[in-house]
């Protein structure tokens, strides 16, 4: 079976879902179910008695078949991210951690230096580290070197819906990486998730596109199918685009005829 391998885990679905921005927990759980995803990312938040229904751990555990990948969003430094990872592992029992460090609250771009430092520490502690990063091929290799389980370069800024604006860089990262490359952030439509898979990504992570859709359940299902289609196409071997126009005077006349 063509499963997604992350550390010792194997997943049949290559769609990972985020859990933010949904209008209700119920809607979110329905979307998760409809998508077929088996890996879901959650954030840490202070307990608030008045918002007890927002707790996800209970409902997600009850759902079955879902592995949690806690993220460190809110952390602005490596130290904070490491702390969040420790607490998350304690709470979830899951070894996965999405290292997400975005100090600027407007554009939410990840900090490469703090991210590298956090990953170095957490990988050394045995976490399955999945860093969220700008689409930088050198940073990707450095993170692979410190023991990350995957690389999660952004397609475009979180929630911007600008799609695969980093496609050129993604292709380089995919070509050079020995660990799974998972596009995270900025995907707006299922076609973009499909395109990412056709490019050679091992999985995609989607949040806003599903959460803010008119019908999140249907959108989640569509994303699930798009990811599957893209993966199949990649396996099947996509036709090359045809080359550029022929030069005015022949370039190969020096070779003579056949």
């Amino acid at each position, binding site marked *: 079976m063509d499963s997604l391998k992350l550390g010792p885990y194997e997943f049949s679905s290559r769609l990972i879902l985020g859990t933010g921005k949904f209008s209700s927990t119920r809607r979110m759980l329905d979307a998760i179910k409809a998508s077929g995803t088996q890996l879901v990312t959650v954030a840490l938040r202070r307990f608030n008695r008045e918002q007890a229904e927002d707790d996800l751990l209970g409902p997600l555990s009850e759902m079955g078949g879902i592995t949690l990948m806690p993220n460190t969003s809110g952390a602005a430094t490596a130290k904070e991210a490491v702390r969040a990872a420790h607490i998350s592992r304690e709470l979830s029992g899951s070894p996965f951690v999405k290292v997400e460090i975005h100090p600027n609250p407007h554009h939410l771009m990840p900090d490469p230096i703090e991210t590298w430092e956090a990953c170095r520490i957490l990988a050394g502690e045995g976490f399955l580290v999945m860093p969220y990063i700008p689409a930088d091929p050198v940073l990707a290799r450095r993170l692979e070197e410190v023991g990350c389980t995957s690389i999660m370069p952004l397609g475009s800024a979180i929630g911007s819906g600008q799609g695969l604006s980093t496609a050129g860089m993604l292709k380089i990262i995919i070509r*050079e990486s*020995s660990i799974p490359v998972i596009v995270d952030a900025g995907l707006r439509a299922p076609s973009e998730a499909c395109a990412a898979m056709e490019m050679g990504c091992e999985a995609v992570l989607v949040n806003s596109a599903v959460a803010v859709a008119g019908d999140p359940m249907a959108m989640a299902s569509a994303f699930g199918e798009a990811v599957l289609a893209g993966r199949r196409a990649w396996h099947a071997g996509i036709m090359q685009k045809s*080359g550029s126009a022929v*030069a005015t005077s022949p*370039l*190969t006349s*020096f*070779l*003579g*005829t056949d």
Partner: protein
Amino acid sequence: MNSLPAWLTDRRLSADIAPLLVQGDGASLERLAAEAQAITLRRFGRIVSLYAPLYLSNFCSSGCAYCGFASDRKTPRRRLEFDEIEKELAAMKAIGIGDVLLLTGERTGNAGFDYLRRAVDTAAKVMPRVAVEAFPMTVAEYRGLAESGCTGITIYQETYDPDNYRELHRWGPKRDFLERLETPERALQGGIRTVGIGALLGLSEPVGEALAVVRHVRHLCRTYWKAGISVSFPRIRPQDGGYQPSHPVDDRFLARMIFAFRIGMPDVDLVLSTRESPRFRDGMAGLGITRMSIASRTTVGGYHDPENAGTSQFEVSDNRSAQEFCSALRSKELEPVFKNWDPAYNGPICKEVAPCP
């Protein structure tokens, strides 16, 4: 390691290039040429970087069926002494060369590691760039060369077909297919910055060889992400000894292979030597080829004392002087570059150092 590495037979690693190698009509070759030219222009501009080989010694312990220096050939053997090396280098510098490739045969008592390292030291004093094409070495030996100023290693697998390889390498240390295959990796681990690889075209079925080279390049790039990889296209030519290649490669196929490589590997240096004719070299410059040797002497001592230089490893087809060749390139609106690098950057690639706290 006793079994062939997975990358060698991984079709996925070369799947995009395979269809481009299928012999088609002239129109398809022209299209490939145009695309290769466009990519070369975008990525390399109009630059062709130039280097020259310096044969240090033709002592050899191996029995390669196809080589003029094989140990059963009657050619007189000699090696350059260090004062001669200096003279050769001075003669090369006088014609503008700034990038030298030092060559020896397989490891022998007469021309072993210590001799080679001292030759690198000598060359690095006067040449901004010093590469070596010699025998497979250990990681520690490569580190030694890197510390002496060697920035590149060229090592051809000759053929990626293990059975054919065994037949062609009749005796000597070169018989070990896997040891040779792993050599580029040992060089990179030793801190050498660039590695040049290739198959000796003519020895085995050429499409298979081409795909194996592509897989090799991509495997190396993926595993050693800071490395520079280049590919050469040595083709069996007539030489003293008369080996007849079993799979001769014609100009059209070689051109197609180079175009396909440029299209599939847009940022790898593709190298052509003076084994090839002036017509072929001039035609291919800018259509994918980004690096060439010039004014080559493939005899030992050939630069400063050509009359007494003895027999050659292969026949040089392009005998033009450096000046003539550069004019030819300029007439095609290409710019020959002799020095592309400052020796201040020539140390070995260091192991990772932790960032400052």
